[in-house]
């Protein structure tokens, strides 16, 4: 079986400071990978390098494209990479405002990716947008409303709908539950888990919340100071952490 995403030796420096160094892993179709670590450990840098938002100083990100098989996305041309990022890839930002167009209605937000890949039938676009609002539990009557009138949790769900409407195969998520209260988090996680299972999505989730990875991720990478200090199956890493930092991380979680 070919890996959907094969990452090798990703290194990114900010001047002399290490962003992330020599990170590599394979992600197979349908698999969800969690990346955890404290603030400044390089997990967002790594995610942005993989998603093409940052250019890594070294390493390759090989994606199994539909048309041409495995291709290195770091060296592929920009139009191709941008095409990937609006068809087979999706990126869910921590702050929904970064991923949404706040001045455009919910339907327009969801429809944007469809129009970007050439859909030109208003009725079809609107029907798909309404369908997706339903799938992320937003009332279809709010299709004309702007995201500024939505609550934080609804904005995050709208962002997810907007990203998944073109049926991507790989989703990058940067702290998708950050800044939401716990009950909204629980609903969002439940929704995400359902969507990932139903659509057979592969996902890479960056978070500092161990509960999120426990629920969603099959495998886990623990990062510290730009390096991967431990990797393995989620339950294995969380229940039997080997590295001193992983042990600290697991034991730091408050038990209510």
């Amino acid at each position, binding site marked *: 079986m070919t890996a959907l995403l094969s990452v090798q030796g990703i290194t990114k420096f900010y001047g002399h400071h290490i962003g992330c160094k020599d990170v590599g892993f394979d992600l197979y179709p349908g698999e969800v990978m969690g990346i955890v670590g404290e603030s400044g450990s390089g997990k967002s840098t790594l995610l942005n390098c993989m998603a093409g938002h940052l250019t890594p100083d070294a390493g390759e990100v090989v994606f199994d494209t539909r048309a041409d098989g495995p291709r290195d996305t770091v060296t592929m041309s920009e139009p191709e990479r941008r095409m990937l990022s609006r068809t087979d890839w999706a990126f869910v930002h921590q702050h929904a405002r970064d991923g949404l167009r706040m001045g*455009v*209605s919910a339907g*327009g937000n969801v429809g944007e990716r469809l*129009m970007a890949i050439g859909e*030109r*039938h208003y009725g079809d676009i609107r029907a798909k947008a309404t369908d997706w609002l339903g799938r992320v539990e937003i009332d279809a009557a709010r299709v004309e409303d702007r995201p500024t009138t939505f609550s934080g949790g609804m904005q995050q769900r709208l962002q997810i709908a907007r990203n998944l409407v073109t049926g991507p195969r790989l989703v990058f998520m940067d702290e998708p539950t950050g800044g939401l209260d716990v009950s909204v988090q629980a609903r969002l996680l439940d929704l995400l888990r359902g969507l990932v299972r139903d659509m057979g999505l592969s996902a890479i989730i960056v978070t500092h919340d161990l509960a999120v990875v426990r629920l969603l991720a099959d495998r886990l990478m623990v990062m510290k100071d730009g390096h991967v200090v431990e990797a393995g199956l989620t339950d294995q890493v969380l229940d039997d952490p080997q590295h001193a930092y992983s042990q600290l991380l697991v034991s730091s979680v408050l038990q209510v």
Partner: protein
Amino acid sequence: MNEQTAYNFAYLDEQTKRMIRRAILKGLAIPGYQVPFASREMPMPYGWGTGGVQVSAAVMTPDDRFKVIDQGADDTTNAVSIRTFFERTAGVATTTKTSEATVIQTRHRIPEEPLSEGQILVYQVPIPEPLRFLEPRESETRKMHSLEEYGLMHVKLYEDISHHGHIATSYDYPVKVEGRYVMDPSPIPKFDNPKLGDMAAIQLFGAGREQRIYALPPYTQVVSLDFEDHPFEASKPDHPCAMCGAENSYLDEVITDDAGGRMFVCSDTDFCETRQAAGHTGTMNGKDAA
């Protein structure tokens, strides 16, 4: 050139005109592409056609016959001031007849009378970037043009339909040129959009404040963007002209009293006067006739 005046012919110095002509030639070579140019301060405020004036000055020769229209009319402030400006600084002949003019500078209209080969139509453009209201970053819109990522333009039309039930954009209606660049046609009514394509005359667009020039060479394919189930429609008020009776010209609505009285007249004054001189008459012509 008038020996007495301190101005160079058509106000701008020759080096500036050369720079602008280079931008125009590049624009003609890549239809719809916005060419940056070093826009000069002109002796009129931004928004009064500084871009169009610079383009006109660069293409003008002493033999040209110049016409200026503002919203179709030859006798409004903007048109009169620019026409006088070139009478003084270039000494060129001017006219109000569309067919006699060789260079026509226009603000927000295309003349009703079809233009012919050899004529140049110069548009004044306030905001040349069609994607601007949805994407404020210039670096990003340039990238979108270069990579032909125009999905966002349809988001704007989508929003129109979702809020108004139809495409409510009635002027400044985005077009695609030769299947490549999406272009802002300047704020002409969308009624004029079909005339942009396949036109015999050269069309030049100058944006002074934004420092951009773009162009359509003769007989260029220009398509107005739309949806399959909401096709483009060149709309106009559903009336004949009250002065000349024309059924197929773009009309201005004129309020005639404070009791709700109004009339619709051709916005193209030359077109209307020519028709009246040829004996055509509308329903309200008698009142004003001398």
